[in-house]
């Protein structure tokens, strides 16, 4: 979309309005379908998703009297003339099918509850009027949107969140920086609590991790470390070794609560871990090793081996990187770890009665509830969701605050 700074707003939205004006003169057989892609979950609203969704219409537009408009917020509007509704359904369903796990596409197509697509019979003057009003509102918000993003650009907010992508040519330098830079002061911890109703939470273990935002500012300012999942994963192998060195030097006998460390599976096979294991040997039963699911999937045999090795030494193993959606596609309780960590996200609110949650319930049943942790708990909703499927272990900012408040209250009560 061209950004025109001086004159009045111009874009596909105004082209749509112009088209509606033309419909006015010859309305018979005209209708519009408004696809509300802007209401998809955030994770489904990637710009390339929308671009590709628009491409699904290519053949349809060549073969029929129809025009497609891409709205600034991701919505698509298809204006048709003299086309069978059934024919249009086919192409709309193709777009709908692109987002199978999104609540927006769950209700029956064409039904009253269908929030994905709304149909407007433009040959009816009332409906044409109403839809024209909607489009005018869209143009207003498009203007606002442009205004704010221009301000943001000036504030360099965009530059900071994106930055130069991590690539093969800058990876080596960043990796060297990560090997050299001081990290001990960037190590934070967050507890996993067992929540007993009516009592203060009890710590299951403390997860030690490196504060990534601060580390990024120190070693790779202006670089987007997350632009390639694989290269980022490579850097974490370096961080593993730094972490092991720092924790290995601390006096583990002073450790009050059990701890957990994030590791790559390959790190477990390395000399660095063997060295750590020598110093940690009498504390292993209080150390949990967290593995990422993608790491496990890329080499299941090595995972099995690492898991056996860690168990034989007395460590506990945790599988991280799960979420309620992923659990519908594989059963993590088959991985025989000691803990499973499910990351909560606000998009899972309201799923309490669906089929999806039954799968999660099964996993909790198979693994045993004392082995399942709900992480990234940032709201009451998350705890409510977790409790509804029998989860009793939680991690996240909301639970941290809750435990603090409970402790303060206990102290007051004394």
């Amino acid at each position, binding site marked *: 979309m061209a950004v025109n700074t001086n004159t009045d707003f111009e874009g596909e939205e105004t082209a749509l309005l112009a088209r509606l004006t033309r419909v006015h003169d010859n309305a018979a057989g005209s209708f519009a379908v408004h696809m509300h892609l802007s209401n998809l979950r955030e994770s489904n609203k990637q710009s390339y998703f929308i671009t590709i969704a628009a491409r699904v219409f290519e053949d349809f537009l060549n073969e029929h009297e129809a025009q497609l408009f891409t709205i600034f917020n991701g919505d698509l509007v298809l204006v048709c003339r003299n086309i069978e509704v059934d024919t249009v359904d086919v192409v709309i369903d193709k777009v709908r099918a692109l987002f199978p796990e999104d609540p927006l596409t769950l209700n029956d197509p064409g039904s009253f509850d269908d929030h994905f697509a709304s149909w407007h019979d433009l040959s009816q003057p009332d409906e044409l009027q109403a839809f024209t009003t909607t489009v005018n509102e869209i143009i207003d918000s498009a203007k606002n949107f442009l205004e704010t993003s221009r301000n943001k650009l000036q504030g360099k907010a965009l530059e900071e969140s994106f930055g130069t992508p991590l690539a093969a040519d800058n990876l080596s330098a960043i990796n060297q920086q990560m090997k050299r830079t001081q990290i001990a002061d960037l190590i934070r911890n967050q507890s996993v609590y067992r929540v007993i109703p009516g009592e203060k939470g009890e710590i299951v273990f403390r997860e030690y991790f490196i504060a990534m935002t601060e580390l990024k500012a120190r070693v790779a300012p202006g670089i987007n470390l997350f632009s390639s999942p694989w290269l980022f994963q490579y850097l974490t192998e370096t961080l593993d070794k730094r972490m092991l060195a720092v924790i290995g030097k601390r006096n583990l006998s002073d450790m009050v609560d059990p701890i957990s460390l994030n590791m790559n599976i390959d790190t477990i096979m390395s000399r660095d871990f063997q060295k750590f294991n020598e110093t940690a040997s009498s504390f292993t039963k209080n150390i949990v090793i967290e593995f990422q699911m993608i790491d496990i999937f890329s080499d299941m045999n090595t995972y099995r081996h690492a898991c056996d090795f860690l168990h034989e030494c007395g460590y506990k193993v945790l599988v991280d990187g799960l979420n309620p959606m992923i659990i519908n596609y594989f059963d993590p309780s088959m991985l025989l770890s000691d803990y499973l960590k499910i990351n909560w996200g606000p998009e899972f609110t309201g799923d309490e009665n669906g089929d999806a949650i039954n799968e999660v319930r099964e996993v909790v049943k198979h693994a045993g509830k004392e*082995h399942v942790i709900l992480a990234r708990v940032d709201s009451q909703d998350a705890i409510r969701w977790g409790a509804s499927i029998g989860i009793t272990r939680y991690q996240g900012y909301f639970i941290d605050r809750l435990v603090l408040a409970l402790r303060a209250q206990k102290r007051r009560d004394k």
Partner: protein
Amino acid sequence: MSDKAITKKNIPSQEKLLIDYIQRMEEHRVGRSVVQIHLSSLRPYNRRESHLRAAASYFEGFISDLSGQLFILRGGDLFFFFKNEIRASTETAVQQIKYMFSDDPLVADELTMHTVFSSWFDAESQFSDIQRIIQVLVNAEERRSIENKNRMDARSALKEKQRLGEPLTPEILSRMESALQRADLSNLLRRQFACSIDKNLIPEQVFSELFISIKDLRETLMPNVNLLSNRWLFQHMTETLDKRMLSMLNKTDRVTISGNISFNLNIRTLLSPEFESFDASVSANRRGTMIIELQKEDIFTDLRAYLFAREFIQSLGYKILLDGLTLQTLQIIDHNKIGADMLKLMWNAELIDGGENVLALVRTMVDGMGSRNVVLCRCDTREAIDFGQAAGIGLYQGRYVETLIAEDERRRDLMRLKRRIERASEPGLGDEEDDM
């Protein structure tokens, strides 16, 4: 789940004891029988130490009055040797154990999946069967422990490095990527056929997988470097390879590509402008002959991106193949939900070691997918084909299949030659080409 660790520590490995016992038994096997209880085929969460102990406890009485002997193998299988006098009560005990696990698919789906909970043998007449089964289990266990030892062993790591080359580093990756942009890769493009194979081991080519040979790539561009030494760097490099592959497929004047083909791509590539321009150059009916192979780790790295890409790619007319499944991943991943058109299972001897229950698992998967939508790859022995045919798998790929293709071609050449000679010796007939 945590008591998995204890399983190994508290129950000593009884494989060796079992082998000794079998040797001693050879002399006095008359009047004895053995039952194998396939607890290793239970879901992992049903074969924790507490479950195994509970199951074993049903035999305690027999053991203490010396009418039977029990062995618990590492995988969880129980072997109970007993005197034929107590057969009826042994059967009752096995039935009770089976009842304990009635929720597990091994028991619950017994009729539909044709799984086996227990196998019974007469020690006198079936002694060699017993020996064979036990030997397979013990060998599998030994292989596993040797493999485990090698991984942690610095000497074998060094040996591996000498054989495969220096590890890939970011610096080398960076050089590699710029070399890849310039190099002509068309002479590194290989194809391997996926074939159906009939009872007489005659292969028929169904599609061919196109790939850039990593071994030759390494020798051409970076000898002495092990490109596979770091999986993350390698995975990143495959994104560059994807783009070169797509541009090669576009230039059909340089590479002739006929018939149904498959190739590997990353999901990120499918959503890139490079794929868009590739797709724009592919005619609509050609799309139906192309199979895009995706790796499971790539799928689970960003499941939403996969689900999106799957619908998009399938709606364009391409087929999607879920690549790289092993026995373990087959058990864990719900392949029906993944919704690929085809699936590739990697051959490994563990598929046979698992006995009837693994066969039942694979057969159920094949029934669901359709025989011609399942490929058994990395077939390097006749054994692989035998297993695949028993499981109903329709397509095969690998070194052994290449051998069969070569043999078949030789056979056809010979036939052709023979006919030509026959015709030449018949007066009045020309030697026009036979259409075989």
